[in-house]
């Protein structure tokens, strides 16, 4: 399969997937359908966690577990980069 054929083939796949994706999304942009959990965060966020910044209330208060795992992801990435670029030891 020559290079151009491959590129054309990829472009066709991408266009087909793009149309499928865009046709399937029918969210009314601007007012999301169900915000019951989000509304709870907005109403009770300050009361439960004491933080004014609701995003920080979520990723440090309600879902602190995600943030813990995610700092470990960063730590593993840093150890990985150091491990690769340390050379022979």
């Amino acid at each position: 399969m020559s290079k151009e054929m491959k590129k054309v083939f990829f472009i066709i796949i991408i266009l087909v997937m793009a149309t499928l994706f865009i046709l399937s999304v029918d969210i009314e942009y601007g007012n999301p359908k169900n915000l019951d959990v989000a509304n709870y965060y907005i109403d009770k966020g300050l009361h439960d966690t004491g933080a004014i910044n609701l995003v920080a209330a979520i990723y440090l208060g309600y879902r602190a577990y995600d943030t813990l795992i995610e700092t470990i992801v960063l730590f593993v990435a840093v150890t990985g980069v150091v491990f690769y670029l340390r050379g022979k030891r």
Partner: protein
Amino acid sequence: MIIHIPVLIIISPLLAAFLVLLTKKYKIILAITSLLISIVFISTLSSRILSGDKVLYHLGGWQGPLGVSLVIDGLSFFFSLIVLGLGLLVIIYSMHERCYGRTYYFLLLISLSSMTGVIYTADIFNMYVFYELLSLAIYLLIAYPKTGVTLRASFNYLIIGGVGLSFFLLGIGFLYAMTGTLEISHIAEKLPIAFNSSTRMVLMSFVLIVSGMGIKIAVFPLHGWLPDAHSMAPSPVSALLSGVTVKIGIYCLIRMIYGLFSTKTFSIIISSSHTILMVLGVVTLLFGAAMALAQTDLKRLLAYSTINQIGIIFIGLGIGTEMGLTGALFHVLNHAIIKGTLFFCAGIMIAKAGTRDVQGFSGFGRQQPSIAFAFIIASLGMIGIPPTNGFVSKWLICLAAVEAGYTVLAVIILIASAITAAYYFRVIQMFFSNPPKQSSTLICKEKQMIHGGNFFKAWTIYLLVAGCLFLGIVPVLGISIVKPAVSILLPHVIP
């Protein structure tokens, strides 16, 4: 203290991983004790879970869909037993290698705790974060020897795995857009309502999640990365990869298909997903078997045989009856044990013979009869010969296929087992042929890895082979562990 057990099972290997980086001498003791603590914690819960109960734990004290919560039911209990059991054996197997430094044990502990994290979490986004942490640790473990070929294999896996997880994350975005929560049980409640209003979106989220997981499980069209990744990695890592990491993708697929899209309103999705699973299973089965025949490198042969066995598990899942699911989940356990033994033996064989080529192992039967015997027993298990456990699970899946009316599937499985027998006997008969000349083409770094204690390596292999035979002779034990998991997947079936 007892109520905190679910989170302590995940956090104890994690904490040990960081302590390993700080200490110099105690890295192995720390690793083993942390895994033993987790296994003891799980076994204290086993009585409750095997009786069908579910253990819930809310992190940070937030109930319901607010915070992240952990749930241990039959399915996650079963998978986490495999993860921690094989993980402990991998650490014991790689204990005496001088070239495995602190980073190796750090990455191994991180991957084990992230696998348990993926299994126990009840929150989709948390499942994605843990899966990403697992993949990052695996990219590094694959390229631990830092030779050129492992770097290339790790890079390919990084790119394809990254794309696969992005599909999974986009699927999560679709689900959140429709239902507004991230908790799997809550999404399952709200999805039928969303299905009536926006059916296309539900279908697209299903396709996204299944294709994302399909890439991580290396199903047929998306398997490009697996043979390089699993064969180039050091032997204990490829045992962990083939035995367990692939099963994590299967676990997520089971959770999504049977957890989210299980209600009546999704009958078209369920029936189509079962046929998709079966078709993918058959194609993966035949492709894996055919490619394995053509391999000369031992570890690539074992990697393709992993793809082959994933096909069988997919067929079992696709059948969907109670017998089929029991067979599939029991095959997950058996494949983890058998593939672990095969890769452990391969590690010793490669180190002894110096080459990875199948021809290089001639006469190995006389040099180390016990390891050769273990390899033979394990390959019998992989083919599915009666005394071993592989036979029981393959027989269950064939029986389920016949009962469900897909007799052609049972025939295909038998053909694939015949091909499996062909490529394993090719290796075994090399054991007993006399060595042509002392071929000492020392190509891979595993040579000087062997000086450590053969004692621990041999004992991990004997333990796995004993498990293989024991589950084969007394299968009722294995099936009793799998029973609560199946009863969760098919709730209306009385266990």
